[in-house]
Structures are given as structure tokens and as C-alpha cells.
């Protein structure tokens, strides 16, 4: 007898509809799975057999052929366990086939005891099932919340095979459904942070520079001695970033779900991510990859902050891999048969010591490095990557009296409000361009949309000549100046805005031109 249960395969974040077909025929007993299954899918035969028997169903002693259609798409992972078992139960008449054209799909891993275990990427699966037009989806209970984010899909959380079979038998009627998630409500409750902008004493200039950076989503390079507070600042950046829209939250949740980072039972990532990989990370870990392509840190930081501390210590190949995401906002990983795209629109925050010992330029402690080593250390910063850094900020160690100056009024919430207002002005100006912040403006956008006062133009021309800025560096200054103007609520970019923008550009970093 023949039966078929719809399911979904994931290629990166994209779903592809799969039909799990089962054919049970009176013949010498074998159990084969076809349709380019990987090792985990082949192993599912053992799990399915044990799960069926331990759920008090009968396992047929006949020839069983399971086909995961389409036959030319690679099937990976244990999430097909559940639909295979259900198709078998239907093919042996132990569970009636689902009537009705729109059907019920299923995903889930099976334990030997018949329990249903969570899968990764449930949100992307649910989206794919919905797109296909299937009305319902049986999912592991721990994945139900994220699947319930998809409107118009009936989500049936199940804990074991018997429960899943009951859902199918009833065609979904009378079965428990996951309650639709009010994502807007989840997002509107402000993220309760354990860290706050006002925790940081003094450092007014650094705070201002970072506020500008966040407002325009500009990439930042922080330089300073160890312990000056670079990490403290980085951890508080997501707190001053504008709140995520629903689309943004779903985009982030989708990536985290596929990476297996969504805690069980949670529906939505509500806070902008902060990823801080150690500098020994591999290229694949940072950018994404692996035999089965997985998102890298840069994608896990999508719409949030990627903090690279000890920037010069990172492998050159890993840093080179950041070029594409910094340029295009996504990462494409190619394999023999397919290519996978993960989003990676990040704010890059790089931090470094000014020299190997860390105290070059420090007002109190002597730098103990020979000058050739300082040059060597700084030359490890790749030119093209530095080209994408819009602001360079020095984070000095505080003098003792400065350490007691606390500005408790400038909380994360207050700063965030300013940043959000500045972003809204940007969105208005950038409407229709595809960019959502000043940092992402192309040269054409800058020419067309940024309006400078005459004095601002003159100042910029002088800087171009005297500081020998490249054209690219000039555009960058304009973008930053535009953000500064947006923070001030100004209609046009004034000379003062350009002046401030210039201070973030040329900083005592040595020989790098522009």
C-alpha cells in the first residue's frame, strides 16, 4: 500500500517541499530509503523501527520502500524521522490517510522510545510549508512557538509518535494547536538589559562617537590599551540600537533557529544579537561553511553587532572572508550541487591595542615595543578591511578623577531614543533605495541624497587636499557627517558636521592614507 506525507527540506534558510512516500509490499522484508538521503537519514530506519514498535504499533514484516521526493535533492538530518514513521503507519493502514487537498505536513526527530525530539530551523520549515499551501504542520512541542509565528498555518505540537498519529488520523480536528504568537507584543516590551550605557564612567568622546556609529550603522575600529573599556562599550551597543521591526526580528530568528541557537520553547529573538567570537576562530566559523553549510558568526550577528576583539590576531583568511558580507550584506557559500545564502548585514566593531604591549600613546605607561614591532603589528590590519571602517575611535584609559564621573541620565533608553529618531530620518530619505542606514549608501546615493551647505563643501574640499583623502574616504566622511546631521535633526549637512566627521576619520593610526 502507498502513502505520502508532506514535509520540508532546508537548504540554508530556504525551504524546499519534500514528499515522504512509503510503499509497503508483501515480499521479503527489507527497509530502504531512497532520495539522496545522508547518513542521518539512513540511520532513521533504526529510529523509526524502534519508535513504531515502542509506540505499540506494528512494524510490517514486508518490503518497505521510502522515497523522499524529489529524488535529486539531497536530504539531510534526522528531521524526516517523523514523516517517515507516519507514512509507514498510513501505508499499513494503522493510521488513516489524511483527506482533503491541503493536507498536514510533519517534521521531527524520533527517539527510540517513540518520543518526538526538536529540530533546527523549524521557523524556516513552517514558512516553506505555508508557501506550499499545506494547511497544517505537525512539529515537536519544543519547536511549536517559533512555527506559530507563521500566520495562516495550523501548528500541532506533539511529544510522541502516538500523538502525531492521532493528529493525522483526525485530520487535525480536535487536536491541540499552538496558539498564534503575538510577535508585535513580544517586540514592544523593551529588552530588559543587565547592562546599561550609563554604567560607563567618563569617556564622553567615545560615547559620542559610538552613538554616531550606531545611528548610521557605521563600522567602527576602537583602539586603546587593555582594560580601557572597549569590551564594556561593545556589550552595551545592542542596547542603544533602535528596536527591531517585526521583519527584522523574524530574519534574525530564522538564522538563529537554523543554527540551533533558539532556546526550546522560545518563539522570537527580540534583542539585536551581539556576537563576540574569539580571535582563534576559523574562516568557516566566522563567515559560515562546513560540509553542510551553517551560518557563521557574521550571519548570527545579522542586524546586530559583530565584535572582533584583538582584531589583528584574527586569521587573515577569516578577515578576508568578511569582505563579501561587509560589501553585500550577505554570505554566499557554494558547494558542488548547491549554493546557500545567509544574510549578514552587520555593524562591525573591531577593537585592538595600539601596539603589542598595549601602551603605545598611553599618557602614563611607557610602550615597551620596538618601533618596528609597532609598525609590524599595525600592518596586520588589512587595507581593504580598514576601508570599510567608517569611524576610528581611540579609547584611552581614564584618569582617576574621570573614573568617578557617572552620567546617570544618559541611559541606554535615552540614547536609543535619539538613535531611533536619527534612523527614522534616514529611512525617510533612503526610501526606495534598498538601504536602511547611512552606512549602506552607495556612491550614487551619496551624490543624490546628501545635501551639504556651501561651507561644508569648502571644508570638505580643503580636507581632501590637505589631508590627501581618497575619493572613497571623502564619501565616507560625508556619510558620517550625514548621520551627525541626522542626530542633530538638521535638514542639510553643515560644516560643523563635516568637521566632526573628519575627526573620526584621520586618527593617529600611523601610515594609512585617508
Amino acid at each position, binding site marked *: 500500500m502507498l502513502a505520502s506525507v508532506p514535509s520540508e527540506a532546508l537548504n540554508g534558510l530556504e525551504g524546499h517541499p519534500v514528499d515522504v512516500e512509503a510503499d509497503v509490499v*508483501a*515480499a*521479503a*522484508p*527489507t*527497509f530502504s530509503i531512497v532520495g539522496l538521503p545522508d547518513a542521518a537519514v539512513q540511520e532513521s530506519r533504526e529510529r523509526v523501527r524502534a519508535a513504531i514498535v515502542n509506540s505499540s504499533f506494528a512494524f*510490517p*514484516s*514486508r*518490503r518497505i520502500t521510502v522515497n523522499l521526493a524529489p529524488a535529486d535533492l539531497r536530504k539531510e538530518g534526522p528531521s524526516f524521522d517523523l514523516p517517515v514513521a507516519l507514512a509507514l503507519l498510513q501505508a499499513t493502514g494503522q493510521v488513516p490517510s489524511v483527506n482533503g487537498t491541503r493536507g498536514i505536513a510533519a517534521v521531527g526527530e524520533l527517539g527510540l522510545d517513540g518520543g518526538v525530539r526538536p529540530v533546527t530551523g523549524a521557523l524556516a520549515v513552517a514558512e516553506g510549508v505555508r508557501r506550499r499551501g499545506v494547511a497544517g504542520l505537525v512539529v515537536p512541542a519544543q519547536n511549536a512557538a517559533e512555527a506559530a509565528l507563521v500566520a495562516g498555518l495550523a501548528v500541532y505540537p506533539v511529544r510522541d509518535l502516538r500523538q502525531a498519529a492521532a493528529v493525522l488520523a483526525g485530520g487535525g480536528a480536535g487536536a491541540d494547536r499552538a496558539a498564534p504568537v503575538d510577535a508585535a507584543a513580544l517586540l514592544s516590551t523593551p529588552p530588559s538589559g543587565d547592562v546599561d550605557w550609563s554604567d560607563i564612567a567618563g569617556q564622553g568622546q567615545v560615547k559620542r562617537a559610538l552613538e554616531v556609529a550606531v545611528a548610521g550603522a557605521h563600522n567602527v575600529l576602537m583602539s586603546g590599551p587593555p582594560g580601557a573599556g572597549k569590551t564594556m562599550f561593545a556589550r552595551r551597543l545592542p542596547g542603544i540600537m533602535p528596536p527591531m521591526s517585526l521583519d527584522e526580528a523574524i530574519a534574525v530568528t530564522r538564522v538563529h533557529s537554523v543554527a540551533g541557537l533558539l532556546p526550546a520553547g522560545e518563539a522570537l529573538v527580540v534583542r539585536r544579537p551581539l556576537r563576540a567570537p574569539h580571535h582563534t576562530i576559523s574562516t568557516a566559523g566566522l563567515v559560515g561553511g562546513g560540509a553542510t553549510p551553517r551560518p557563521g558568526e557574521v550571519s548570527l550577528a545579522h542586524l546586530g553587532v559583530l565584535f572582533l576583539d584583538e582584531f589583528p590576531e584574527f586569521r587573515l583568511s577569516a578577515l578576508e572572508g568578511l569582505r563579501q558580507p561587509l560589501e553585500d550584506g550577505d554570505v554566499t557559500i557554494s558547494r558542488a550541487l548547491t549554493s546557500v545564502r545567509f544574510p549578514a548585514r552587520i555593524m562591525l566593531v573591531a577593537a585592538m591595542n595600539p601596539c603589542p604591549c598595549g601602551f603605545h600613546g598611553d599618557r602614563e605607561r611607557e610602550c615597551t615595543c620596538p618601533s618596528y614591532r609597532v609598525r609590524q603589528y599595525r600592518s596586520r590590519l588589512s587595507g581593504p578591511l580598514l576601508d570599510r571602517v567608517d569611524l576610528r575611535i581611540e579609547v584611552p584609559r581614564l584618569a582617576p578623577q574621570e573614573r568617578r564621573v557617572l552620567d546617570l541620565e544618559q541611559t541606554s533608553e535615552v540614547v536609543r531614543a535619539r538613535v531611533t529618531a536619527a534612523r527614522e530620518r534616514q529611512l525617510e530619505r533612503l526610501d526606495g533605495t534598498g538601504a536602511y542606514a547611512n552606512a549602506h549608501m552607495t556612491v550614487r546615493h551619496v551624490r543624490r541624497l546628501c545635501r551639504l551647505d556651501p561651507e561644508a563643501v569648502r571644508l570638505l574640499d580643503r580636507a581632501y587636499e590637505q589631508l590627501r583623502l581618497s575619493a572613497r574616504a571623502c564619501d565616507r566622511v560625508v556619510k558620517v557627517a550625514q548621520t551627525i546631521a541626522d542626530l542633530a535633526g538638521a535638514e542639510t549637512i553643515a560644516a560643523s558636521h563635516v568637521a566632526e566627521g573628519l575627526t573620526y576619520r584621520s586618527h593617529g593610526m600611523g601610515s594609512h592614507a585617508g
Partner: protein
Amino acid sequence: MARPTDPSRRTVSRQRLGRAAEEAAARYLETRGWRLLGRNVRVGRGELDIIARRGPVLAFVEVKARRTHSCGAPEDAVGAAKRRQVARLAELWLAARPWAMGGVRDVRFDIIAVDLTSFPAAVRHLAAAFTGD
């Protein structure tokens, strides 16, 4: 029974053991409503111990005998290679006889383990002991 002391007599005795076990297995099945379709059935260069039918179930039964427990439980003596061989021979046998599948719903590979250390011999029937893969 005299203890065998020379190799030729030991071999004969092992053959006798095999026969005794098969007899016990055959009787066991028949008393439980199985119809024996064949015993020691030659298929190609191999042999299937017992082919039996009961209702909608067609069973290919491999019989194993043991005199002592020293070599492990009898069912473990049907190793992977042997199992593959039984499955292969069964497919061949079925392929040559399409009529044999009439009214059959389940096809099984069973093991009957005959423990000859006790008297009368203890018979253990492991239904669906293995599959073709």
C-alpha cells in the same frame, strides 16, 4: 552415547546434531499450525533450512543447534553473512515461484534455536529475527 574421539566421528556427530535440531524445529512448527513448504531446500549453491506458511505469514526459518552454552546463544550463531545469504536465497526462491506469494501478507526471516543440552530439547522461536538489510 560414547564420546567421539577421532575427527571423523566428531563430524558425523555434528551432522546428527543438525538433523536432530531440524527435526525438533519442524515438529515444533507443525504442532503450532505451520505448514512446511520445504526442508533443506536447495537454492543455487545454498540451502534454506525450513520454509513454512501459516495464514498470511510466509517464514524462512534458519535452524541452529548447540550442544553447550560455551559458544554463546544459538541465535547469535546466525551472523551477518549468514543472514544476508538467507535473505538472498529467499528472494531467489520467491522469484522462481510467483504463486508462492498468493495470500501472503507478511514475509519473515525467523530463527529457531534448539538447545540440545536439555532433554527434551528446548526450542526457542525468534520470529522476524532479522531482515534483508
